[in-house]
């Protein structure tokens, strides 16, 4: 069963007298456990698509189905609940709370999902998995960019979500750290069976995913898959995909 389905999804914005079609009739099916990147130029609609997938925005028309549930019919409170339990987010600039240490930041989503049983133990395990066993009690200002992003990845997984959305998740780190971050997400994808959808400008990041969806003017321009689970997309596959 498909975990996520987008049907004729649109998101239009009014700007003065014109209508901006940020997302313009996207149809997509995402299977459980996929590791996907969404690429495209600035203004292609990839961030809006991510916001729609994250239930942070309501579409102008069309449907977003999570495990068959039409999220458009849910009220704001139920969408927030679904977001907390089924979705995880990894942002470009980490978005860690400065007053909380690493383990407290990882545990933050538990505060809103009533899913806190063994929460501290789970958070500690996740931090160990992302290689921050010795940095659990450090605050964000005591950590490097790569470490902060690993905390953010641990936080995105604390509620055992079915989908993690990455918004330029490697945009604030150097290429070596970027490589480590994507590898980590790939490992989490495989070990936890969690679907990852990464919005990125970075060809190297896209090249490490199993499926690359290219958007242009709010529409899907191409949707390329790796041949097997073990085969990453080659630079030939990506030719013309990344602007």
């Amino acid at each position: 069963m498909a975990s996520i389905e987008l049907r004729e999804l649109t998101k239009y914005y009014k700007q003065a007298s014109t209508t901006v079609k940020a997302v313009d009739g996207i149809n997509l099916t995402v299977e459980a456990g996929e590791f996907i990147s969404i690429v495209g130029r600035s203004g292609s609609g990839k961030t809006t698509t991510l916001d729609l997938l994250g239930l942070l925005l309501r579409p102008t028309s069309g449907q977003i189905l999570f495990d068959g549930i039409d999220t458009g019919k849910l009220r704001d409170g139920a969408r927030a609940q679904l977001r907390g339990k089924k979705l995880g987010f990894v942002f470009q600039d980490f978005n860690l709370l400065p007053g909380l240490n690493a383990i407290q930041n990882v545990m933050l989503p538990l505060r809103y999902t009533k899913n806190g049983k063994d929460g501290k133990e789970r958070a500690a395990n996740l931090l160990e998995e992302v290689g921050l066993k010795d940095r659990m009690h450090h605050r964000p200002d005591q950590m490097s960019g790569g470490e902060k992003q690993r905390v953010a990845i641990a936080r995105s997984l604390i509620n055992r979500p079915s989908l993690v959305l990455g918004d330029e998740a490697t945009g604030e780190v150097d290429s070596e750290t970027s490589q480590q971050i994507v590898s980590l997400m790939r490992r989490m994808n495989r070990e936890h069976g969690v679907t990852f959808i990464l919005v990125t400008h970075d060809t190297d990041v896209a090249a490490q995913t199993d499926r690359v969806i290219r958007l242009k003017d709010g529409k899907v321009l191409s949707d390329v898959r790796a041949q097997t689970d073990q085969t990453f997309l080659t630079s030939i596959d990506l030719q013309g995909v990344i602007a």
Partner: protein
Amino acid sequence: MEIIRNLTRRKLRNTLTISGIVIGVLALVTMGAMAEKFNALIDGGVAYFGGNIQVGAAGSSAFGGGSVLTLSTVSQVQQVNGVAAAFPEIQVDAKPGQSSGFSFGLPDYITAYDPRANDYSTVKTTFAQGRDVTSSGEVVLGSDFAVEFKKKAGDTIALPIRPPDAKADFVNHSFAVVGVLNKTQTGPDTGAFINLKDAQMLLQDSLPSAIRDRIDTTTLITGMTVYGKPGVNLDNLSDTINNQVSGVKATKPSTIVNSFKSGGAIFTAITTGAALLALIVGGLSVINTMLMAVTERVREIGLKKAVGARIGHIMREYVLEAVVIGAIGGTVGLLLGWGVTSLVNAATASANLTLFLVTWRLVIIAILFSVGLGAAAGIIPAFRASRMDPVQALRAA
């Protein structure tokens, strides 16, 4: 814990905001303590005068007013149907000729006192030290009176107190202090209680020397306190006394009680109104601080919404933070207010000038008000935070 961490992130700003609440609560506590002191006196007066009938000479005021009655009038009043007991009264100034200055209490007074009246009175006095007066030359002091003149059971005191500019004919007498009463927060605290014979002697001494030897005060009283039998309406009994005993004026208890209550209500309104103004200013500074906090934490709010926080969660977090600001300010303001009023009371006790009374009621009001103010002040910022669009909040600069 996160709230405390948030408050320490902007130490100066939050300290200033909390200081605003501290000043407001300090004003509430000091002004409220003044009102409480006044109200205690009023309540004591209401309790005491609501339970008996003050009888004076016809044409006198409810509290004596200078006219005198003969002692035989007491037995006439006692004959009136419905009267349980009538006790003669002679009241003289404790500090004749001396201005009592500003005081929330009654000025110091000396009064004839029959210990049996305590069985009827609604304001019961108890002893902190010693015993009741049993013979002439003995005095029981009210608690403030004893503190003012630094006397305890076993000491002696010359009554009335000699004023600094005493006239040549001023006379006073030495009394043995046989007891000191516990504090009542009302009338008895500033009294000195002697027997009727001694009071008649002091009444005679208080007369101008030209007429002093020509008047026999052993048959005179300045008034009496009358207690009704159980179930008797005292206002009606006052009318009966006025109708059946000539030359007396019995004042209805309700008349005295109403005059006390109206005075108390006006004073309470003025003092609490002034304090509330100060608190509202403090509340506005909480609103300002919390609005700034919301503006600074836009991305945090966006993140929290992204990870599942609902409107109620965000509202609760911000209101709670404002409540903590209010509670900290309220606690510090209360402690400061308690300290200031205690210091002022201690400094002015020797001048019979007890201005403040910090009651549990006032403590609870101050805490509830500061917490409630914090909560109310937090609602607008919390509402703004909770309604924030998560997409815009997450990508705010």
